[in-house]
């Protein structure tokens, strides 16, 4: 299969490298920051208006790619919940000497609980490693999307983007 988002639904290494929404390695090492993996020119801008800190810029031209200013981004996470493409995660490579956290939007029931061990998954839905759930955030400002934070070995922080869906229980149906 050829690489690239139009063939796989997954941005290729090159597409990610050229993507203006991805913070520098140094910025990720310093602490929580948004990683915006939005690589196609689509007419969309809720991330820009979600950010109170002015860290995301799209501008007048609606189809321009979102550009992240890593210095302005506080890692607050609001854009994660408000991006309709579910294309944004928060990565924190300063979590501990060996571990990072990845916060991602999660719109499936049941939600995991804090402290649970879940399967951390890649952009292709493959299990990368087991992960501990650090937090499950639900806020009215998130408009129904939960944001789950998990901790993973830092070596996997660039690879992990979600968790495996949990089996449904009767009461979720």
């Amino acid at each position, binding site marked *: 299969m050829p690489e690239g988002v139009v063939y*796989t639904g997954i941005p290729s290494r090159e597409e990610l490298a050229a993507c203006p929404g991805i913070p520098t390695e140094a910025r990720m090492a310093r602490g929580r920051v948004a990683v915006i993996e939005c690589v196609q020119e689509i*007419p969309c801008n809720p991330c820009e208006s979600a950010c109170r800190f002015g860290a995301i810029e799209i501008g007048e031209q*609606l189809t321009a790619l979102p550009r992240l200013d890593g210095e302005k981004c506080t890692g607050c996470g609001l854009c994660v919940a408000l991006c*309709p*493409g579910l294309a944004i995660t928060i990565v924190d490579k300063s979590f501990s000497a060996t571990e990072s956290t990845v916060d991602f939007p999660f719109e499936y029931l049941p939600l995991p609980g804090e402290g649970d061990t879940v399967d951390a998954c*890649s952009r292709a*839905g493959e299990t990368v490693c087991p992960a501990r759930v650090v937090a499950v955030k639900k806020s009215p400002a998130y*408009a129904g999307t939960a944001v789950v934070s998990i901790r993973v070995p830092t070596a996997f922080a660039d690879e992990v983007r979600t968790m495996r869906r949990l089996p449904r229980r009767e009461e979720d149906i």
Partner: protein
Amino acid sequence: MRKITAEIAVVGAGPAGLCAALEARLAGADVVLIDENRLPGGQLFKQIHKFFGSKEHRAGVRGFAIGQELLAQVSDSGARVLLDSLVYGIQPDKSMGLLTAGENCLLLAEKIIIASGAKENYTPFPGSTLPGVMGAGAAQTMINVNRVLPGARVVMVGSGNVGLIVSYQLLQAGAEVVAVVEGAPRIGGYGVHAGKLRRAGVPFYLGHTISRAYGDDGVRHVEIARLDERWNPVPGSEFTLDADTICLAVGLNPMTELVWMAGCQFDYIPALGGHVPLHDRNMETTVRGLYVAGDVTGVEEASSAMEEGKLAGVAAAEALGYLDARAAKEKKAEIEARLNRLRSGLFGEKRREAKETQLAAMQRARESEKEVV
């Protein structure tokens, strides 16, 4: 027969119709808005996902919430809203047949705005008449409006945004999507929508098609085949998946019956979904006083449908004398600027070009009309 009269009748209460009715009413016109469904909102009411578009088109807000907001504004504006009411025909003199509350009525309006939306395409294959084969829109109505899961294991045909979004919503509702099958060699919809499915482990089969579906009492097995460059199935490439549901998301086409009946001129523009009525920058068709807006003018999206609705509403109100030329011109310029911003980029540029073709054809139609006169 009971007569219902209004200065402006708007047929269809999707995003286009709601916006058209609101603009016209706010300008002061007497407006009646009609929809065959019990809930207005058109497509919006089954869209549980957060919308694309810009913040000014309420992007990031879930579709059904946009519908509810618009509806409240329309109700507050004093426009009359007739639900569960079908406009079943239109005469050359523009009088319309309306079924409302079980009664057959005559609907008379000085200006008519048709915002009837679009309907799903169908694609036949051996087994496509089995129970379990349905349009993706039908599946979406089942899960999001009626809260019934159409099946446990779904094959989605088509990777445009509708196929991708409905697949995601089927996963959320608890079904497994065992494959997204796409004839073209690339994914048709937005990468970010496809990405959600990939992260959930849904396999994509590009350059593939369904060769047949079979099962005793409904769909049980789905055979998939690879396509060569000329879209012919490659013998020996078939494989079979177990599935009980097949959803077809193979495009939409404008719901133009009323517009044909009214005698409007059409053009065939595949990028817009097939036969589309010609209209000018006021959204007025070749039949004077008859306007169109939204997916019926060419399949696009809710944000552009809302803007076209506003254009039609403003233009119809202006034609009735409720807006002076300057005020109307200003409003229209703002709307057009927003439409142009929507119709740009990787996915929008083609639509903008198609829309220009449609407007140019309208221009020619108006000119030849003048020559005849």
